[in-house]
């Protein structure tokens, strides 16, 4: 164990700086604001700093390290040229308050992205401002709210979510001030139309749902669900977390949705970075466009007097505030760096984004098949069952290990820890909540057949493992099973200098 705060070099150690442009002995600071004690930051030379963070990186698992079948998170390969592009001065060294004639290049890319995202989701208008999926949800729900306010339907105070929904759905709607109505799913995880019919009414603002569902299953009755909600006067919201399954095959627009968010950090390969940054643009149908957060990028034919650049020989790109905008959800123009990376990713596929989704679904079904086949062959097929009994899944699938828990006391979390010992990241555990002892697998399109074959074998080896060994797992990792209860009961949220 090495601690950053144990580096206590001489004062001023670390990175050298040029001298100040004027003497700093008499800087004007109000006397009550003179800082008395500097922060207890460490003192490292550059070699020490580089080694510390390199050492930390060796204690972390990424997609580059190995297979990362984390369901719902779409852990696909991140093409490296995207990182190079995002550091070009034409994006990294740009200020969000620069005038339009200085940023025609960025605006043209934003315009291209707005158009592309709109086409892929069957939506009429797009904003790139929300910086994460959850913020996209919140933004769209705010647009619904203003839409109803304008129509004099402010009595619509309820948002319906299925019990299989991502936690952000109810959290985002609740933050916007809506009451949450949770409806149960059917046994097989699909939406229960009767339960939906029973709760819609004059007070329904919206339904939030993802399709394929969090069980990785396509909702065949999605159009009917949309009809029920629309007939009651509500809006349909598409959680884009699972969009990777359907590009070019269907779209939220075709299914009857009014608004959608995109997770650029899932579908469009902005790296997850240990938890962020992300980017969560939203698309809406035309009746909601006037409420989008502002501004959005528009273009018009170039006029005499416009300053020509290499990108706008035909078009002048400009910001425009939607007429009844909800305002801002981030102070600037969103996570532009993520949008640029995702643009580079889009350019790699173009219309073949459809092939990308087909391969994501191919890999998920293949892995599911291989696991089942291998488990049957090794006599452990009875230790789990399908989260949803269907012939085909979409980009991810769920398995329930309730039978195994019942039989030998080994649940999803033990299996997850066993997988860590095999050199894999574990699938998502205990989600969705409606599947007991759930594991959710999402291989993505960027894993080879060999990786999937090997994983299926190793996974079944874990299922065959001695329960006592699995209770002890992991044993090969940098630390062993971490005591999360201890962490919560003995809160140490920063380096305890006074323990020294």
């Amino acid at each position, binding site marked *: *164990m090495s601690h950053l705060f144990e580096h206590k070099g001489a*004062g*001023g150690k670390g990175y050298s*700086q040029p001298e*100040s*442009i004027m003497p700093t002995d008499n800087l004007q600071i*109000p006397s009550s604001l003179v*800082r008395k004690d500097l*922060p207890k*930051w460490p003192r*490292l030379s550059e070699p020490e*700093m*580089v080694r510390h*963070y390199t050492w930390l990186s*060796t204690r972390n*698992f990424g997609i580059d390290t190995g297979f990362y079948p984390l369901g719902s998170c779409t852990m696909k390969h991140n093409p490296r040229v995207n990182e190079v592009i995002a*550091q070009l001065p034409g994006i*990294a*060294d*740009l*200020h969000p308050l*620069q*005038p339009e004639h200085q*940023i025609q290049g960025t605006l043209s890319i934003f315009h291209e992205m707005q158009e592309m995202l709109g086409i*892929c989701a069957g939506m009429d208008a797009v904003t790139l401002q929300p910086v994460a*999926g*959850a*913020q996209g949800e919140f933004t769209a729900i705010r647009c619904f709210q203003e839409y109803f306010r304008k129509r004099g339907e402010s009595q619509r105070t309820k948002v319906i979510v299925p019990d299989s929904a991502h936690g952000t759905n109810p*959290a985002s709607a609740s933050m916007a001030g*809506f009451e949450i109505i949770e409806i149960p799913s059917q046994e097989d995880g699909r939406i229960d139309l009767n339960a939906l019919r029973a709760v819609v009414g004059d007070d329904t603002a919206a339904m939030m749902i993802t399709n394929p569902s969090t069980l990785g299953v396509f909702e065949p009755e999605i159009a009917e669900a949309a009809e029920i909600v629309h007939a009651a006067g509500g809006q349909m919201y598409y959680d884009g977390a699972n969009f990777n399954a359907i590009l070019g095959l*269907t779209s939220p627009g075709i299914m009857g949705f009014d608004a959608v968010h995109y*997770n650029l950090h899932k579908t469009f390969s902005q790296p997850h*970075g*240990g938890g962020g940054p992300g980017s969560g643009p939203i698309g809406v149908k035309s009746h909601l466009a006037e409420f989008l957060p502002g501004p959005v990028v528009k273009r018009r034919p170039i006029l005499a007097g416009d300053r020509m650049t290499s990108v*706008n020989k035909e078009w002048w790109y400009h910001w425009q505030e939607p007429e009844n905008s909800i305002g801002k959800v*981030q102070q*600037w123009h969103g996570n*532009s*760096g993520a949008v*640029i990376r995702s643009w580079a990713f889009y*350019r790699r596929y173009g219309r073949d984004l*459809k092939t*990308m989704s087909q*391969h994501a*679904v191919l890999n998920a079904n293949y892995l599911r*098949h291989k696991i089942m086949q291998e488990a049957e062959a090794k006599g452990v097929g009875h230790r789990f069952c399908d989260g949803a009994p269907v012939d*085909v899944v979409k980009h991810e699938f769920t398995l329930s290990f309730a039978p195994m828990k019942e039989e030998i006391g080994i649940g999803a979390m033990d299996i997850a820890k066993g997988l860590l010992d095999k050199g894999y990241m*574990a699938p998502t555990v205990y989600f969705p909540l409606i599947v007991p002892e759930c594991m959710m697998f999402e291989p993505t399109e960027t894993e080879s*057949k060999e990786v999937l074959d090997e994983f299926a074998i190793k996974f079944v080896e874990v299922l065959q493992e001695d329960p006592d060994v699995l209770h002890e797992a992991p044993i090969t990792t940098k*630390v*062993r*099973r*971490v*005591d999360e209860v*201890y*962490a919560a009961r003995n809160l*140490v*949220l*920063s*380096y305890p200098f006074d323990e020294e």
Partner: protein
Amino acid sequence: MVDQLPNLGREKEMLEAMGMSSMDDLFADIPEAVRMNGELPLRGPQSEEEIIADARRILGANVALGDRVNFLGAGLNRNYVPASVFQLITRGEFLTSYTPYQPEVSQGMLQAMWEFQTLISELVSLKVANLSVYDGSTAAAEALTCAVRVHNRKATQKDTIYISELLPPARISVIENYTQGGGVVIKTLRHNSDGTLNLESLSEAAGSCGIYVEQPNPLGILDGGLTRVKEIIGDGTAFIVGVSPVSLGLIEAPGNYGADIVVGEGQALGSPITYGGPLYGIFACTNAYLRQMPGRIVGRSIDVDGQEAFCLTLSTREQHIRRHRATSNICTNETLIALMGAMHMSLLGPEGLQKLAQRNMAACELAKKKLSEIPTIAIPHVMNCHYNEFVVELPGAASDCIAYLDTQGLIGGYDLSNWYPERRNWLLVSFSDQTKAAEIELLTAHLAVWSASVSPGVSA
């Protein structure tokens, strides 16, 4: 595309293994009525070489700040991020990892974020810091909703918060969006004509859930009066301060003058401006706000062998557990940018931070000295101390001045009529550690010329 899909050309083999014959079989569950038929109406795929060539051409059409002499800041200042930060951040173990839900294989990022929490906690002098929210504006908004959750029950001004009247409209708009769902009433705090907070009227805010002010404030003013705020508003009202983090190398940490929550835009530590995102929002608070705070937090723990280990903690506040009762909807945050911040802070050390703050402040002071020598312009808050930026009152419209400076190769600053419509002649000029003395000379010369040219027509 062909270089991204390992199983391209092997579809048949894989389908046959599953007893299927075509890719269409995989989508048989999508009803005909909702299928998209035909190709996506998009352009064709490009190779990596074509993409980077296009990127260089298109982004090359932008004017980067480094291409010009720049005085545009308004909360985001041009900085220098050490090369080692960019090199380390490309390590795939960091870059391509997800939220550390499996702590046994995520100790690197968990420890780095625990260290980040410590660096921030020390910087602002508060016990607790989370591992980032989206940016400075959402940090302020989340702090205010947090204050309502903590104080509303006992508040005499229920559901009420106060914010500085000087805040930029975009920041206010974010705060409005985040608070309107809870039915929160936003009132404003007045400022004196010299730009400092009006302490006489501040007692109006006592009994509300919280107040939000900034140090330096949006006009760049360092306000010594903020050290008296907490005694005026009292314990039942949260004192929330938005900071420029680098300034804290010289300026007292708000935790030491009564702040309950400190937020801020982290960008100056570790991140290029990147057209306004991704950045990272700093969020720190006292223990009293811990269980109502938004976002993820890392705790130190032990593993089954008793060795030190780190994991996410207090997750029961968060959306994936608490769902609609969560303290915030935030899930994805800005971890990687916060990591860049931690790396930059580690390299700076305490004295490096102090020196960086001095360089920023010196640039601002030198500029104030030079510009105050121009007879045709005024510096309205000249008697105050400034950090990074100050207001120049011109003899004509700031928009005209900026247009003139643009023709001279300068990005001249920010037209404050965008924030305060009645202030047509206010130009906000910004200076940072990257500002050169010669650039200040250049600005002074051009402003003198322009101001003299419009002065005869000035109407008071």
